[in-house]
């Protein structure tokens, strides 16, 4: 089908793979930022077709995975209240909190509903004036404009019964944190195409030059990822460290300005805790004081809830590209998508779930 088939064409894939083999002379470690890219890599078996010198490590760009445990527990607390309709994207319902998940709250009688857009949650608030409607506003820069639009509409209409539980994080501060760590092995990045659709790619220029890493804005289809890898490897082999845009059919240098303006109108930059990683300064979004009437943490008085992460799950190291899912003792044994220890095993963008679903045997290529 149009816009899909041409990016999954086996003949073009073969040509790009041959070119990657031809230009690669040394070992390189490349991180794809976004969990959507991780899943595309594992689902299509792209890693099986690359030269053995190239190691792809999987980045922190899975919004469900990095949402800290205490935000999940706040969601469970709010969703359990009788006067609340708690709305969320489907992914979040199976993420384990300290004791249960949103599915369990639903089976216990909580009114938990999957919505496909935060504006559907605003609509629910209009139709249910006697209920508090809460939307779980999770995600990176990609989902921020939609969530901002929902809050903006509710604010403009004076909808007092609509609020959002915010767990919004930003990519560039996380990249800087990873690159600054002494354990860092990453030499080049595939930046997250959809994040850059909103934000553009200018903010990656100082990161590329300061840390001397090539950064290629990359899409999600097999052709996109192969081409992104090729561009990063070419730069690495030539000793370059620039920002390039592979995903030019969607991403502009300046991004989507109206979307950025809307984000600024509703959110301010704040410190955020990342599940498995810890707090990163100025790495997230919080509602501005003007929008605080729509902040579920304040409406339901759960802002002070603090929860420690369990030690048994290594998802933090997986999210930083330090370990592969199959290096975890619990992987595929006590930790499966059905009984997840961490969110990386739940989300459709989590690295652990990608390996579990598509590459069970230690990530080794299945023989043809």
């Amino acid at each position, binding site marked *: 089908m149009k816009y899909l088939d041409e990016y999954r064409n086996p003949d073009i894939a073969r040509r790009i793979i041959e070119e990657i083999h031809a230009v690669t002379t040394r070992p390189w470690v490349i991180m794809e930022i976004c969990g959507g890219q991780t899943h595309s890599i594992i689902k299509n078996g792209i890693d099986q077709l690359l030269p053995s010198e190239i190691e792809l490590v999987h980045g922190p760009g899975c919004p469900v995975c990095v949402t800290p445990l205490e935000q999940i527990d706040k969601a469970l607390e709010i969703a359990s209240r009788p006067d609340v309709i708690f709305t969320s994207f489907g992914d979040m319902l199976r993420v384990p909190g300290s004791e249960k998940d949103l599915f369990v709250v639903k089976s216990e009688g909580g009114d938990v509903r999957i919505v496909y857009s935060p504006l*559907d949650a605003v609509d629910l608030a209009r139709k249910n004036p006697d209920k508090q409607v809460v939307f779980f506003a999770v995600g990176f820069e990609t989902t921020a404009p939609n969530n901002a639009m929902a809050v903006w509409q509710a604010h403009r209409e004076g909808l007092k019964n609509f609020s959002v539980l915010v767990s919004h994080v930003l990519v560039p501060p996380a990249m800087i944190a990873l690159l600054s760590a002494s354990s860092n092995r990453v030499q080049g990045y595939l930046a997250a195409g959809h994040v850059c659709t909103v934000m553009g790619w200018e903010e990656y220029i100082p990161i590329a030059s300061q840390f001397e890493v090539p950064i290629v804005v990359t899409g999600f289809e097999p052709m996109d990822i192969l081409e992104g890898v090729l561009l990063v490897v070419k730069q690495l082999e030539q000793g370059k460290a620039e920002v390039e845009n592979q995903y030019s059919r969607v991403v502009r240098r300046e991004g989507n300005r109206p979307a950025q303006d809307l984000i600024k109108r509703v959110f301010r930059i704040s410190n955020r805790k990342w599940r498995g990683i810890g707090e990163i300064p100025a790495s997230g979004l919080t509602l501005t004081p003007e929008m605080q009437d729509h902040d579920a943490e304040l409406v339901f008085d759960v802002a002070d809830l603090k929860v420690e992460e369990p030690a048994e799950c290594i998802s933090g190291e997986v999210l930083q590209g330090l370990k592969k899912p199959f290096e975890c003792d619990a992987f595929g044994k006590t930790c499966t998508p059905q009984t997840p220890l961490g969110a990386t095993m739940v989300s459709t963008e989590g690295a652990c779930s990608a390996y579990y679903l598509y590459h069970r045997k230690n990530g080794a290529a299945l023989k*043809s």
Partner: protein
Amino acid sequence: MEQSKTRPSATEVNPDSFGQCPLPITEHATVQLSHGSGGKMMSQLIDQLFLWAFDNENLKQLDDQAVLTMNDGRLAFSTDSFVIDPIFFPGGDIGELAVNGTVNDVAMCGARPLYLSAGFIIEEGFPLQDLKRIVVSMSTAATQAGVAVVTGDTKVVNKGKGDKVFINTAGIGVIEHDHNISSHNLQPGDLLLVNGSIADHGMAVLSRREGLAFEIPIESDTAALNGLISEILNAGQGSVHAMRDPTRGGLASTLNEFAANSEVGIRIRESKLPLKPAVAGACEVLGLDPLHVANEGKLVVAVARDRAQAVLETMRAHPLGKDAALIGEVIAEEAGRVSMQTRIGAWRIVDMLVGEQLPRIC
């Protein structure tokens, strides 16, 4: 379906513990929606509770129907309940589905379905006009499938204690051949055929669910497959080893059940899967794998390699099989595993759905 071979049966355990499972049903103390979604959790519930409690040779086969040996032949017997929301959807309704679903379950072992029962659980206040529409639709579907609804039951529950209408149907058919057609009977070397595009029903229903504000030109594929099956059996000349309709849990669940029950490996090719562009697009938008999405008028056939072409041509000549395709093969190695060659030539595992299908965040 996954079965534990070491678990004690109900009759072997202490009677005092009857009603308590010998093993916990995963981590949950209460029934979750995922326990009914056709994936791994449902498989565990069946294995750990129902099979344990009702332990018998017929049930243990875990096929779509029980094959019962009578004095002078074999009968196929099956039941299914229908709780679909919405009850009217593009391409069909709950009544048509209730007839076709059970007809198909009976027919998958090569039986000729003859009689159905129909049980209705109706919520107080449900419009009689809608009930009539559903029943007329059942009657039409039964006539088309050549079966008669010969017994029934009606219960009305208080408002709020049900959701509009639930229908249970059971069906009986006669087996007029001597072959063993079962999910336990796949043979290495068999080829796998499907009678047309996958994931149509699931996406048609999803497109009408509350909150999903897009309309896609997709209709449910609900259909009674007994006519097609009869022609497949003629063309197969005894070489059809297994048939199953990939309903909830989609093609992925059916193939995994085939691989597990027959202790064989299965390989399919992504490029060979019939998929309508609109369905493919809707799955992409929602982040759903079409291999996990329900079908209601599709079947997968495992047939010996030397008869596969003849069966495929027969399927393509039938109105319900004109888009039939050869999607893969059965191998002796990798027992229990289903893998798929991706479009770009690599391989990946195809697993059963875990829990509910969840649309992704972004």
